[in-house]
């Protein structure tokens, strides 16, 4: 029993410590973004890696998501005889929920894992210590470009996801099932309002920050990992943890943001 209490106490302490570290880390990274000098090169490289290189995956997942939405939507709406609402159903679900969430999950898998592993290996091989000893702030030098790129990329990728998803829905709904083309777009146009788009943008901005924050901090604090952040296995375990944690956090935040903004 005492052992158990001790365990719980330890867990709480560790959790609090970790939360504090991550908070300070985020603060320092944001300071790093704001402080001059500003360097464009590294940020563009990160934009390329986090953003541009994700476009293909986003096109693919976006198209199929839109298609399956139209498929499901068509059969559901036909039962009540309102196929005309297909456009607004597809548009609203993509813009408000699926676009931001699925884009974020894809970026976690592609870029979040890579960032965590990269930073973790740098921590393990003392490259981050070396940076600090050279009086180069890792928050500014390593993290700031990633944060900027993440926060800029996510809304853009989400936009691409939404557009291609709506087009996918169009192909299935209008092309395959013969829903009236005018009704598809007109329905969408009249039901999607500024607050819906606003919600999508807020979500994708928040997810961009969350993804980079969790991935980078997990790698950066690899040596504090309780499961042991040593060697190749430590990096791989921590990367897996980071991906799981980011995915769960995204879904939780998705709910919270929806609840707040609705």
């Amino acid at each position: 029993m005492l052992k158990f209490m001790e365990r719980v106490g330890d867990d709480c302490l560790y959790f609090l410590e970790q939360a504090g570290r991550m908070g300070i880390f985020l603060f320092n990274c944001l300071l790093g973004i704001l402080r001059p000098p500003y360097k464009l090169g590294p940020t563009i490289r990160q934009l390329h890696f986090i953003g541009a290189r994700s476009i293909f995956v986003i096109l693919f997942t976006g198209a199929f998501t839109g298609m399956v939405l139209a498929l499901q939507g068509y059969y559901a709406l036909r039962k009540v005889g309102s196929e005309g609402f297909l456009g607004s159903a597809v548009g609203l679900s993509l813009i408000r929920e699926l676009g931001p969430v699925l884009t974020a999950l894809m970026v976690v898998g592609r870029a979040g894992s890579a960032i965590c592993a990269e930073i973790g290996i740098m921590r393990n091989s003392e490259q981050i210590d070396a940076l600090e000893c050279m009086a180069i702030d890792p928050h500014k030098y390593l993290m700031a470009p990633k944060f900027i790129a993440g926060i800029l990329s996510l809304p853009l990728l989400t936009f691409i996801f939404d557009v291609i998803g709506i087009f996918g829905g169009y192909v299935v709904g209008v092309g395959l099932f013969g829903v009236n083309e005018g009704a598809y777009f007109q329905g969408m146009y009249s039901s999607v309002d500024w607050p819906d788009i606003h919600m999508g943008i807020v979500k994708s901005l928040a997810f961009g920050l969350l993804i980079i924050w969790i991935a980078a901090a997990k790698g950066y604090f690899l040596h504090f990992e309780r499961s042991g952040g040593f060697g190749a296995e430590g990096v791989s375990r921590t990367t897996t943890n980071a991906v799981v944690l980011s995915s769960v956090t995204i879904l939780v935040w998705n709910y919270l943001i929806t609840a707040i903004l609705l």
Partner: protein
Amino acid sequence: MVEDNRKAIIELIDLEKSFKQQKVLDGVNLTIREGTTMVIVGASGQGKSVLLKHMLGLLKPDRGRVLVFGRDLSTIGGKELKEVRQEYGVLFQNVALFDSMTVYDNVALPLRERTKSSEAEIRSRVEEKLALMDLQGTEDKFPAQLSGGMKKRVGLARALMLNPKIVFFDEPTTGLDVSRSNEIYRLFYKTQAQLKYTAVIVSHDVPKIFKLADYVALVAGGKVQECLTPEDFQLSQNPAIKAFVKETMGPIYSSEEEEMGFYETDQR
């Protein structure tokens, strides 16, 4: 201790550090003076690297103080720590080159991040440093493509890039063959004569390293046993130092005592 009125640049005062249950440093006192070469010796696992990391501000002591230029590293803020580190050059035990950057970018990094030099200036200064280290033609290689000795030289080039006041070397020659390690020491000697930096070297190359040292400090049992000139060190009556000197400088072959030692450890 011998009188030396050169200015103290690093002072460690009653430094204590534990990792979990293990007490690695247990009251370390050491003074490093401006312009001198301090050699830190001691068996593996005695805490030499840990000691160095305290001077670098990478580890915080449980108790005691680390004063660099009179500033206490464990109480100053990030900005001041950065100022102190601008005077540092560090060659890590594992070199810690940035492994996804080329040799050129590694050596250029301090210039790019800490100065406002143009790319042309950077190129000429990097090439000059690489030439000094005998590394022409490796600019576009990645650290993984270099031999151990070359990596150390790249690390040295990077550490010396901004003319540091204090340079730390953690086992700069461990794992190198004799001629390679002689080369590193030659480079060290040459660059120190040129740049006049204070040097802190952790090394196992006893007695060779004594030729370069102004002071030698032995780390054993969580303490700096004594800090002496190389001559005094070899004659010291301190039992730990006597044992160390005998172990590292005594005859290796055909000594009865040595052989007994071997058998004893074999049987365990």
